[in-house]
């Protein structure tokens, strides 16, 4: 395993130590594995709390800061945080104005956040939850666990974080979060597996001439394995299902093309050069775009595309100042 690690069991604790050393405007609660803003939540401001398994950096800890999250609970690699962790994050972030839980739709995340919300309510904290389920690679059905939550989460945390910063109340913040969540669709492709430190070897074996289509962000195999294709063909494999799922994809949008951790930026740009004309063809009017590693799957080579249909309010809030390790502008 070619990684910067000491004991694989200590990866999370030690990465948190590095985050604390690097970012003086964040506070790391090492015991609970929670990343918080160094400044307590302003009285009256709704707090945004997210979290999930680690291995997706900068998400979520790297999105804590002014204009975005108030706290993030970091689970072990690819393992949802426990209710205790989420509760600690929730209580520490609450200013009395209530807390929005931003949850990606995985059984583990949903159950642990649910339990935490019950515990928090018992302690008198008002909690609303939004569950992001944007991955079009997964067929949705009431009989299944439903779609995974992926890239839309990043865009949602930015937009809704800006509204909370403006002082909107919990109901308004939660309503916008649901609106953004419903407006987003994602699709991911992996060229290699990733290696979970505790497992010590790649999660799956992928021959040199094959790739996985429709992967999530936990190193799981994708929906199908196909022959390795050109960037041009891959762009189509990513754009088509998103456009198809929208029904009508036309209109203004915010787009995120995220590397999965092992794919360098030059390839991400090349891929975006193929994606952009396909989106235009489908009528997607790309108003804002982010390219880089924002939601990752350890060291997996691959990329995921997210399209969020954005109205004027979303665009205005997108442009509002944000100061986090992972996303920063306007201040």
């Amino acid at each position, binding site marked *: 395993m070619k990684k910067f690690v000491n004991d694989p069991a200590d990866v999370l604790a030690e990465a948190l130590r590095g985050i604390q050393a690097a970012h003086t405007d964040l506070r790391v609660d090492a015991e609970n594995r929670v990343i918080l803003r160094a400044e307590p939540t302003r009285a009256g401001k709704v707090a945004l709390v997210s979290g999930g*398994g680690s291995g997706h950096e900068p998400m979520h800890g790297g999105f804590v800061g002014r204009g975005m999250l108030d706290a993030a609970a970091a*689970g*072990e*690699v*690819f*393992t*949802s*945080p*426990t*209710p*205790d*962790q989420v509760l600690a994050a929730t209580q520490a972030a609450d200013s009395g104005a209530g807390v929005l839980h931003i949850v990606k739709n*995985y*059984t*583990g995340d949903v*159950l*642990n956040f*649910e*339990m935490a919300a019950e515990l928090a309510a018992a302690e008198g904290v008002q909690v609303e939850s939004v569950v992001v389920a944007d*991955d079009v*690679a*997964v*067929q949705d059905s009431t*009989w*299944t*666990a439903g779609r*995974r939550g992926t890239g839309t989460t990043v865009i949602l945390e930015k937009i809704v974080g800006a509204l909370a910063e403006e002082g909107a109340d919990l109901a308004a913040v939660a309503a916008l979060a649901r609106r953004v969540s419903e407006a987003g669709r994602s699709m991911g492709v992996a060229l290699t597996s990733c290696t*979970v430190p*505790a*497992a010590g070897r790649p*999660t*799956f074996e992928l021959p040199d001439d094959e790739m996985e289509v429709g992967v*999530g962000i*936990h*190193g*799981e*195999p*994708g*929906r*199908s394995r196909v022959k390795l294709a050109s960037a041009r063909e891959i762009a189509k494999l990513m754009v088509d299902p998103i456009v198809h799922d929208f029904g009508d994809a036309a209109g203004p949008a915010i787009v995120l093309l995220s590397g999965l951790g092992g794919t360098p930026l030059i390839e991400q740009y090349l891929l975006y050069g193929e994606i952009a004309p396909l989106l235009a063809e489908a009528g997607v009017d790309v108003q804002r775009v982010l390219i880089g590693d924002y939601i990752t799957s350890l060291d997996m080579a691959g990329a995921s595309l997210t399209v969020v249909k954005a109205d004027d309010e979303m665009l205005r809030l997108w442009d509002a100042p944000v100061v986090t390790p992972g996303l920063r502008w306007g201040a």
Partner: protein
Amino acid sequence: MSTDDLVAWIRAFRDAVTDHKDELTRLDSEIGDADHGSNMARGLDAVVAKLDPAPASPAELFKTVGMTLVSTVGGASGPLYGTLFLRMGPALPSPDGVDTAALGAALRAGVEGVIARGKAEPGDKTMIDALSPAIDAWDAAADDGPAAAARAAAEAAARGRDATEPLVARKGRASYLGGRSAGHIDPGAASSTLLLEALADTLAAAE
């Protein structure tokens, strides 16, 4: 059964999971995210660290186990295994004495709790596919005493685990693979089988 017997069960479960940690993670690599072995091992290590001194009663034991699993495992298995144990204590007819029927009732309550939390049905390719037949088998063999009931439950769990192999998953991460999830044993069904095998072994030794 004494509280000590039940503590021995939990310790045996921890040992079995430790021994099968890599195998559980390998199963989870095939159709999940390669962490079930480390998740369960981490949680059960934390549980065992809380068993000295031993809890005063079976009800207390189950509560400690459940709360510790919930707060140390994470993932899907943390709340689910945690719920299993958290529901067992309150379902005991009396908090202290435990006989075959009482443990059977507790296990049933636990499994129903897992179903309520996770909303999985038999056939969804989850731990329920091992747990559900196990509690039915327990009840059917209950008249033969705890060791026999536990052995029957363990055997039913193993059959249920093996039967997950051809299934297409409808719950948990494996469901994201669609048809590709067929052909692999569910890791949670495998760890649940270890739970019941540990119980059978412990009660056989106690006889």
